[in-house]
């Protein structure tokens, strides 16, 4: 039974488990939204989901297709304007966890979602850009990143800092006056990395079942720090898998 799940499913389940009940979580669409809703339906019924479209306390019974999905407004405790969600809710540090994806990530948790390769004005690949991420990364109590791990993604130095992690290392966030705690946890399809409290460097602390340290090193574009006591995540439970798959299935069947 335990082999009966994909690496993406393990990643999403691990991310969901990371969210504590009763906290407020600023959620992006895609993997973060899936994981946050899985958490809400499983162990964290009082998780407060906040979407940048202005939906506070959304409780969607299906996965939203985008941050503009009506299911978010219909199920939210409150729908506020976009300026308000950023100014009154995110900026003052009211949100415990910011839940972000990344196109590139470096060892200090700096995130790039802007351009890859070439020059900013003449990039190899033009990505969507910043969205809400720079201020989510700056202001939330802590940041959880969910991203598939590969040499393309986990690189020594991001081509563009869209959202600041720990900058060039210890002290940078404080020096810049950022109030949030930064990217404490990165959850991938191979395992979990946590920022070392002293060096701020992302350190492999947990592996998903069946994954080796060498596999993770091979998917990391810098000399990877590994925790002395390396744990292994529990595989998804039957319940977690069933609920996750039911959630994913809702993306296919939109009411019309």
């Amino acid at each position: 039974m335990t082999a009966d799940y994909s690496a993406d499913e393990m990643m999403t389940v691990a991310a969901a488990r990371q969210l504590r009940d009763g906290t407020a979580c600023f959620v992006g669409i895609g993997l973060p939204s899936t994981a946050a809703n899985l958490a809400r339906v499983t162990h964290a019924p009082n998780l407060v989901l906040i979407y940048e479209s202005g939906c506070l306390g959304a409780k969607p019974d299906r996965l939203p297709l985008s941050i503009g999905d009506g299911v978010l407004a219909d199920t939210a405790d409150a729908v506020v304007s976009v300026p308000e969600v950023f100014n009154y809710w995110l900026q003052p540090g009211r949100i415990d966890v910011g839940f972000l994806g990344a196109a590139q990530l470096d060892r200090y948790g700096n995130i790039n979602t802007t351009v890859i390769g070439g020059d900013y004005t003449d990039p190899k690949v033009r990505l969507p850009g910043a969205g809400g991420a720079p201020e989510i990364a700056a202001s939330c109590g802590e940041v959880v990143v969910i991203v598939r791990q590969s040499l393309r993604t986990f690189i020594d130095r991001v081509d563009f800092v869209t959202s600041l992690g720990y900058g060039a290392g210890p002290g940078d966030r404080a020096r810049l006056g950022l109030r949030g705690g930064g990217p404490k946890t990165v959850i991938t399809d191979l395992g979990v990395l946590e920022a070392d409290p002293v060096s701020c460097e992302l350190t492999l602390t947990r592996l998903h079942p069946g994954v080796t340290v060498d596999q993770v090193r091979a998917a990391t574009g810098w000399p990877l720090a590994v925790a002395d006591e390396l744990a292994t995540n529990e595989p998804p439970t039957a319940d977690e898998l069933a609920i996750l798959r039911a959630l994913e299935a809702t993306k296919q069947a939109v009411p019309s």
Partner: protein
Amino acid sequence: MAKLVSLADGVAELVRDGDTVALEGFTHLIPFAAGHEIIRQRRRELTLVRMTPDVIYDQLIGAGCARRLVFSWGGNPGVGSLHRFRDAVQNSWPVPLELEEHSHAGMANRYVAGASGLPFAVLRGYTGTDLPRHTTNIRPIDCPFTGETLTAVPALRPDVTVVHAQRADRAGNVQMWGITGVQKEAVLAAERSLVTVEEIVDELDPVPGQVILPGWAVTAVAHVPDGAHPSYTQGYSVRDNDFYRAWDAISRERASFQDWIARHVLDAEVPA
């Protein structure tokens, strides 16, 4: 009081070549029909402004309407990238596209400043990122009381803002609800405004979560049922997700894009 106009007349009168144009809608109530009319009327050299440029902006950019884009997130929401946007940025096709790039918090506050008649807004934003390297429109500002350094962004003041809403009454009072994003600010920040609506009614019955734009703060209202298709209109229609997915393939190649625009926009039957 807002004038009631046809979509064609509204765009003809209010959207001019070279204008700074914001078609807003935070992935809900996106004014697709108005965007198509801008393409049909072959507007050129527009500065397009929007927090979340998505498929309609991909179409405007691919159709050659824009020379500049001011934005914070450009993608096909829930699907992936915008290929026409990418082609314009990476290959200057069909014309070069200049970018001015912000965060959502910065863009939202720029609209707030515009709506408030202020030249700038202050936020905690952009700190430590590479965004300020690429525009002069992100600058430090010191608090005159504490000395703390924050970030300033200049007001956005579009020549014209276009939004879609659920309803208007005959005096041009506009009612929208659901996720209303930054539409009020974008309309109030603009010199002129055009609102397309699903329905024109005698009385605007109050709806929880409604945002009202009084008719005297709106330039023109056009009756355009389904004017946000394929995006959502809360209470009227859900997103045509098949189209959003199909767009990925349609827009990937220039030829298939041009064919689609010709058949579905340029030669489309235009509502009166």
